[in-house]
């Protein structure tokens, strides 16, 4: 029995649909995770100890437990608590965003702390307040340094979104499993799915490389 290209062709519409959802989930979770991550990163750097500790706990929890477990907690616990029933897409977005935010918070913190403290002092000595100094002096420099690790995190997030298949979110991996179950085949669906993920992650890397170069020459 040869490789069944015909079955793959049959499933192309589903893979396309799944890919669109994977891209959608990734974009939404990336944006939410980045915004949350910035807040959490700044929170962890807060001078007040209890506040800083709170964010430290958040980061420790989400980096120290499996995303798989977090997804189940959100899917079967948190989401029904709020809307009364499960919702795969919602649970996936929440779990991915909260998880990515923990990693992104550390990227932000490291980026900000990598800037020489003389920069902050110079800005403050000119009369800028803390927020003004952050916005005009520290962040513009820190963001350049954050792009490579952020890019990594976005690639990880795209790959991690495949876990959503377990909670019946009809993204790319979901259709791979559907095809495998339907025809009792392994290679065709999973190699196809793997290649599509590869295209997505490679595109993301290329995009970020380009952004990095653009910023470097500015």
């Amino acid at each position, binding site marked *: 029995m040869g490789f069944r290209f015909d079955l793959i062709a049959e499933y192309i519409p589903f893979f396309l649909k799944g890919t669109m959802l994977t891209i959608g989930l990734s974009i939404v979770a990336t944006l939410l995770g980045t915004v949350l991550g910035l807040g959490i990163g700044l929170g962890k750097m807060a001078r007040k100890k209890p506040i800083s500790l709170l964010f430290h706990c958040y980061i420790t929890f989400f980096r120290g437990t499996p995303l798989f477990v977090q997804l189940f907690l959100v899917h079967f616990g948190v989401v029904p608590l709020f809307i009364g029933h499960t919702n795969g897409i919602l649970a996936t977005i929440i779990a991915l965003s909260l998880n990515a935010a923990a990693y992104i918070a550390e990227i932000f913190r490291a980026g900000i702390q990598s800037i020489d403290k*003389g920069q902050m*002092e*110079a*800005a403050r*000595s*000119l009369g800028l307040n803390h927020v003004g100094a952050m916005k005009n*002096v520290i962040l513009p*420099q820190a963001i350049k340094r954050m792009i490579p690790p952020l890019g990594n995190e976005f690639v990880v997030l795209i790959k991690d979104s495949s876990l959503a298949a377990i909670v019946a979110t009809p993204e790319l991996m979901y259709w791979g499993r559907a095809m495998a179950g339907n025809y009792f085949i392994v290679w065709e669906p999973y190699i196809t799915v793997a290649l599509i993920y590869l295209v997505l992650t490679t595109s993301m890397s290329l995009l970020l490389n380009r952004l990095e170069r653009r910023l470097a020459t500015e």
Partner: protein
Amino acid sequence: MIEVKNLKKSFGMNEILKDINVDIKSQEVVVVIGPSGSGKSTFLRCLNMLESITGGHILIEGLDLTDKKTDINKVRTEVGMVFQQFNLFPHKTVIENIMLAPMKVRNISAQEAKEKGLELLRKVGLEEKANVYPDSLSGGQKQRVAIARALAMQPKVMLFDEPTSALDPEMVGEVLEVMKQLAKEGMTMVVVTHEMGFAREVGDRVLFMDGGYIVEENLPKEIFENPQEERTKAFLSKVL
């Protein structure tokens, strides 16, 4: 215009400034000398609250920096600071470095900030460098830009923390020249430096610090030619 009374500063258990008392008059140039670790930088940084004060008072034009009601950002606009390591903003051009604070803090228009900035660059002899990034400047040029940047806020006092210590010897002169000019124009200045020639020529008064105290203060000529304290003598014999 600056009154320092019983100033104390500790880092944890480590008391760095023990009891500093000094009055600095308007248009005076005060030079601070002393061995490494004696607290010179800490003293200077207290004057614009880059370090929080442990005890005592600092009054700038009658405004008490230790008073919670005092707007520290407002005070800092009146007190310019020049650092040993320049601390120019590397992501901004020379003119942008100078324009930033006037625009963000004083809400001056970009055009006005630019005109004033170019004027200051002319004053420090770097007008043609307005649109380059700090990375392409020599150390002496960087420090002159840093001075122009601080002057852009039109401060009443300028603090200099070893402004020439990070420079190659051949560039020290150009920075000292700018500072001399500033002193001549009547700027109130507090300068931590190892340049004894500058202290003698430009300083109105020299403070010798050691171990967290001002051990001796006097006219430059007196300090250098006729030091009273043993510790001053020992220090000067090493540096002169």
